[in-house]
């Protein structure tokens, strides 16, 4: 029996999301992902003073606000030709890392895991444990995680004044010089967060988790005593075979992030059966299936436009369809770690590509990888040395800011004419992952990952569909902005 079903609005995702599923013979034959809310930040930015972008762009999003600030500061720094002093670079790393780790934690505990407490899993041997830990509003896990997250976010009070919507992240560095006693307070906060992760999330030292090199080692580790929520998830993932669920394009992109002076903690690249350098010039945004006025062929974002139209034949989303040399890409923690060459991430994608379990494990792996780096950056801060230099913009200039938000690759493309913003185009991580079809008819990454899943025309949709959608940790307000 054939049917068309609309799923949405989704709870436990950031922003508005609606998915249309064409179902035949008990399976999803085609998925159409719709971002139903348009806001117009790129239009609002036109004509503004370039520095005012730092005030406006974080307000695209209440959860990845610093990522937007960081991309904007990088674009402005590129346009001004300035490089922040080491303290400014380290403070920017610490601020972005705090937000990214908090987002990973929130996704796992509040957005993703509650689906395993659903009644349809009542017969599974792990169900009682999942209900006790993760059932929405009453599970024991959120009551442990929320205070730990709030305490961790106090990093932002010292590093950035406040979160969200800080102005401390500037093209020339940080507005917030830290003194030694304050740096020790930040160490204390990190140590407390490490304690939470090691006791509650991993049941193991972060370094032990970071050292896991393969899927086989991961399963051996799971079988050890120690408890922790990752082990519970791995038990569920094995039982439900989430390692085979929700495969996308298997082309993974990362812009790279966390500037360490002569290198980045996670380098940039494109993984597809091996890593190749990323050619940013090959990015183009296709609007054939999005509600925007056609400006001819797909355009590179530096020359892109955002001209909303309410009616357009064939369009079904406000999300554009970014492509790299015409290819659909997946971005996020799994992509970042596969590109960066973490052995576990490489082993997973080489064996079975992207999957629900792979995406979730990569996020938790990043908690174990990035927190020790934050501890190192804190020790490298040098009170008394400069934190911020001036950044003077020419009246005619342009710049690009590329960073990795929690959810993946975020790019800002800025053009300044006569001292004002002439064009400002943004491609957010979920714009890549949740893009609609392009002119060649290629579905986006989530659309591909949903195709083939079991579904019926009348019965409640299986939780598997929710697992796949949420495994990407979508941020819909950033997607369209």
């Amino acid at each position: 029996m054939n049917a068309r079903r609309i799923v949405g609005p989704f709870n436990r995702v950031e922003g508005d999301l609606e998915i249309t599923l064409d179902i035949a013979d008990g399976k999803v034959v085609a998925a159409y992902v719709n971002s139903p809310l348009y806001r117009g930040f790129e239009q609002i930015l036109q004509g503004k003073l370039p520095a005012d972008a730092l005030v406006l762009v974080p307000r695209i999003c209440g959860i990845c606000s610093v990522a937007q600030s960081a991309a904007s500061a990088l674009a402005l720094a590129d346009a001004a030709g300035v490089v922040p002093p080491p303290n400014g670079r380290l403070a920017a790393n610490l601020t972005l890392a705090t937000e990214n780790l908090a987002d990973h934690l929130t996704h796992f505990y509040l957005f993703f895991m509650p689906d395993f407490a659903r009644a349809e899993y009542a017969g599974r041997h792990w169900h009682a444990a999942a209900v006790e830990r993760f059932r929405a509003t009453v599970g024991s896990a959120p009551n442990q995680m929320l205070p730990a997250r709030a305490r961790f976010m106090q990093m932002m009070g010292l590093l950035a004044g406040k979160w969200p919507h800080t102005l401390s992240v500037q093209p020339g560095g940080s507005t917030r010089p830290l003194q030694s006693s304050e740096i020790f307070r930040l160490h204390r906060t990190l140590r407390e967060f490490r304690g939470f992760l090691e006791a509650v999330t991993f049941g193991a030292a972060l370094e032990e988790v970071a050292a896991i090199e393969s899927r086989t080692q991961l399963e051996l580790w799971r079988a050890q005593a120690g408890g922790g929520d990752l082990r519970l998830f791995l038990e569920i993932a094995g039982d439900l075979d989430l390692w085979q669920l929700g495969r996308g394009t298997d082309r993974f992109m990362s812009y790279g992030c966390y500037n360490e002076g002569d290198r980045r903690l996670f380098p940039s690249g494109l993984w597809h059966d091996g890593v190749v350098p990323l050619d940013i010039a090959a990015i183009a945004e296709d609007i054939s299936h999005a509600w925007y006025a056609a400006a001819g062929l797909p355009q590179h974002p530096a020359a892109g436009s955002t001209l909303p139209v309410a009616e357009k034949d064939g369009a079904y989303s406000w999300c554009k369809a970014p492509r790299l040399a015409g290819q659909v890409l997946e971005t996020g923690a799994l992509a970042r770690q596969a590109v960066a060459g973490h052995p576990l991430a490489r082993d997973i994608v080489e064996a079975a590509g992207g999957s629900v379990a792979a995406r979730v494990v990569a996020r938790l792996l990043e908690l174990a990888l990035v927190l020790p780096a934050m501890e190192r950056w804190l020790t490298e801060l040098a009170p008394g040395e400069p934190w911020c230099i001036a950044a003077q913009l020419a009246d005619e200039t342009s710049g690009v800011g590329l960073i990795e938000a929690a959810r993946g690759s975020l790019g800002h493309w800025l053009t300044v004419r006569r001292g004002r913003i002439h064009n400002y185009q943004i491609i957010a991580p979920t714009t890549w992952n949740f893009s609609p079809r392009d002119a060649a008819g290629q579905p986006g990454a989530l659309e591909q990952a949903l195709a083939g899943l079991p579904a019926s025309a009348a019965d409640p949709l299986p939780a598997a569909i929710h697992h796949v959608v949420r495994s990407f940790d979508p941020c819909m307000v950033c997607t369209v902005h």
Partner: protein
Amino acid sequence: MNPTDACGLQYDGEASGGLLGPEFRAAAGLPVINVAGCPPHPDWITETLAMLAHGRLRAEHLDDFGRPRFFADQLVHHGCPRNEYYEFKASAEKHSDQGCLMEHLGCKGTQAHADCNQRLWNGEGSCLRGGYACIRCTEPGFEEPGHAFEATPKVAGIPIGLPADMPKAWFIALAALSKSATPSRVRENATADHQLRAPSVKRSKK
């Protein structure tokens, strides 16, 4: 630029009206409560909801723009740790300087209604403590200030936006007086990113 025609529920900028109109009252008899701020402090939201749930928030507890007075009857300036710099008009000239942010870097903390520097954000933060201007985000129309957010507009060297309730002539006279009386410690520290001179230590006479 407002491409989506977004507006407030009961105000459009300073004008009463908005989506629901000025006469709208909810079932409990209250107008729309504007928990202002971009973003609002999370405590402002939870305390507003808790007060409503306990019947402790009535119309007289809202100010002229429908903001709960428990946070809107304060100024961001209250509790600012840069107060000594403000008193002596010892001003920051660039980002990461320790001085007052009002004269050059666009700070509107003396005009913005909120308790950010008493309640604090994320434990021990605020915009001013973070080294950047208050942009008045709890006030109607803050999003289009008509000047660069992080620069102070001036006429003849005098900031256009004066502290709340302060007559202009007084401000000018006091500013001139306090500038002439600024201790060198305060003046030097104001344009540095760390303390160059500590307050002097005096021993009591025996």
